[in-house]
């Protein structure tokens, strides 16, 4: 009744909707707990972040003393050189991690699709990095990259490829690629599991028919297997991209964003602004920008998922 359109048509449409909602009132009980948790932990924070992004806040979270600054936080972000450095880092990090993790995961899934002795064991070993904590992974690799006692440096020196162990994560030029290697190590198993699941849905008859028709291995893959995996590939790539865009632990624990911002990505930068330098307003404005970017990605995510839904409905 809050929507007054002045037309009986709108009211005529509203009535059945309300009646329908009333008839289905019991159904809502099933989703209510999930929705309630989501509202508290999601809707309220989003509202609060948007509000805070227009204010200048004193340190210490004494939020009563905040000062309205309009779009001041946004202009100061977009004009700062750190913003562009961090953005290019984030792009390199997200694109490289997503692409390489997907290719390695997909290739592993294909190579593991045929049955051979030890396949189950191999598959289990390849999945382990995805299961262990990112904190543990960060420490393991930090030790591997260690500039004095790291194993990679020692191997390079032993093979005569370097005079002294390189500083993988203390040097501006190598830090980002080194962290990406760690990230891919943790993430390719996810792509592998998803694509293994996808491969099981490719009908064997089609592959056999293609073989009878004389298609070679590559043609069978390209014309039969791959089209069947398009949906699952899209979902996997999007989930990987979102996860990479949102990563925090690996750069935070391994380098803290250093040296001189060379491994800062958006999330670590926002965290440092908020909890390190206590600049809540600027950090919130950053979050809102991030939010807008993710909404764009989310649009494609939902479209990819509802593509599945539609096919489901017609089947």
């Amino acid at each position, binding site marked *: 009744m809050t929507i007054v359109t002045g037309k009986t048509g709108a009211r005529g449409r509203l009535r059945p909707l309300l009646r329908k909602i009333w008839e289905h009132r019991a159904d809502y009980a099933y989703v209510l*707990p999930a929705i309630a948790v989501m509202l508290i*932990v999601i809707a309220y924070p*989003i509202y609060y972040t948007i509000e805070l992004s227009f204010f200048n806040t004193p340190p210490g*979270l004494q939020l009563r003393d905040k000062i309205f600054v309009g779009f001041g936080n946004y202009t100061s972000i977009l004009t700062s050189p750190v913003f562009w450095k961090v953005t290019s880092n984030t792009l390199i990090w997200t694109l490289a991690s997503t692409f390489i993790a997907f290719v390695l995961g997909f290739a592993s899934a294909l190579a593991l699709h045929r049955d051979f002795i030890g396949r189950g064991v191999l598959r289990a070993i390849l999945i382990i990095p995805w299961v262990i*904590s990112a904190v543990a992974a960060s420490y*393991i690799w930090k030790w591997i990259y260690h500039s004095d006692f790291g194993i990679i440096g020692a191997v390079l020196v032993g093979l005569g490829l370097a005079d002294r162990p390189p500083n993988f994560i203390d040097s501006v030029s190598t830090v980002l690629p080194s962290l990406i290697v760690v990230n891919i190590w943790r993430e390719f198993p996810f792509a592998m599991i998803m694509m293994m699941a996808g491969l099981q*849905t490719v009908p064997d008859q089609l592959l056999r028919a293609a073989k009878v028709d004389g298609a070679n291995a590559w043609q069978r893959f390209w014309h039969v297997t791959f089209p069947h995996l398009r949906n699952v590939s899209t979902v996997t790539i999007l989930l990987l991209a979102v996860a990479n865009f949102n990563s925090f632990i690996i750069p935070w624990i391994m380098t803290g964003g250093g040296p001189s911002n060379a491994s800062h990505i958006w*999330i670590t930068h926002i965290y440092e602004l908020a909890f390190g330098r206590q600049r809540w307003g600027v950090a919130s404005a950053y979050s809102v920008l991030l939010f807008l970017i993710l909404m764009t990605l989310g649009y494609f995510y939902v479209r990819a998922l509802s593509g599945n839904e539609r096919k489901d409905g017609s089947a």
Partner: protein
Amino acid sequence: MSTIAETARRGQARRRASIDGWRWGGRIFLVFMLLYTALPMIWMLITSIKSGFAAMQFPPQWWPDQPTLASYQKLLDPQNSVGQDFLRFFWNSLFVSTATTILSVIVAVPAAYAFSRFTFPGRNFLFFAVLLRNMFPAVIFLVPLFILMRAIGLVNTHGSLILTYLTFGLPLAIWLLKGFYDNIPVQLEQAARIDGATRFQAFILIVMPLSTPGIIATAIYSFIGAWNEYIYAYTFLSKNEQLTLPVGIQRFFSENTTDFPGLMAASFMMSVPVVVLFLVLQRYFVRALTEGAVKH
């Protein structure tokens, strides 16, 4: 005649050669992936059985001269302070993860069932709203959640973590379970209801048992997510006796920066529960992904 047979045979041979080429390529690739995956973990294990002195050598000892379990003994000994802390962190992680897992199954099962079976207005909107949660990084929610938790008095309690972790697990859990319920024929429930079962009974007696693999997959996912979570635990908890493992280990080793054997032993022990859990139950997980997420 013979030339035709000849060409056919040659063609077959060529095809076999190319298939072998792919197969060998696959094997070499898998060996590479195995090395990439396993070598860091092996190096972690080897380092964890060195003494602190043996670890700090250049060139490194590939295998320790005197292997020792001292790091593990130190971490598991309730008599000294390091062991006390480690065991307490371990217990905290176990409590938070288990509580999160149980709650998320309780919340996700009815929601997924409703999304799969009922056609109430706003169903699609609510479903995608739930899925969208996946899109947003922890950091966006950190400041407002911290203030919210402070307002309702949950800062420095495990409750703040459990409530937050619940929302990570829920989107994927609901998505996976919905796919499962979609694949269970409605006729099964209808038959049960004709036989006099209520909707609730039909759900408990027919649908729940059939969706057990999905529920197990959901539970694994929630448990692993909660066990490994770092950023909220790092922000919400400040008292030493409440820390979970990832934060506890990080805090401990930022004070003892050179104890790499201890750090590797702690990393190993932190990984054992989730790896074992996953390896034991992984077939449910892969199956749930196949049936729930992929096959539509």
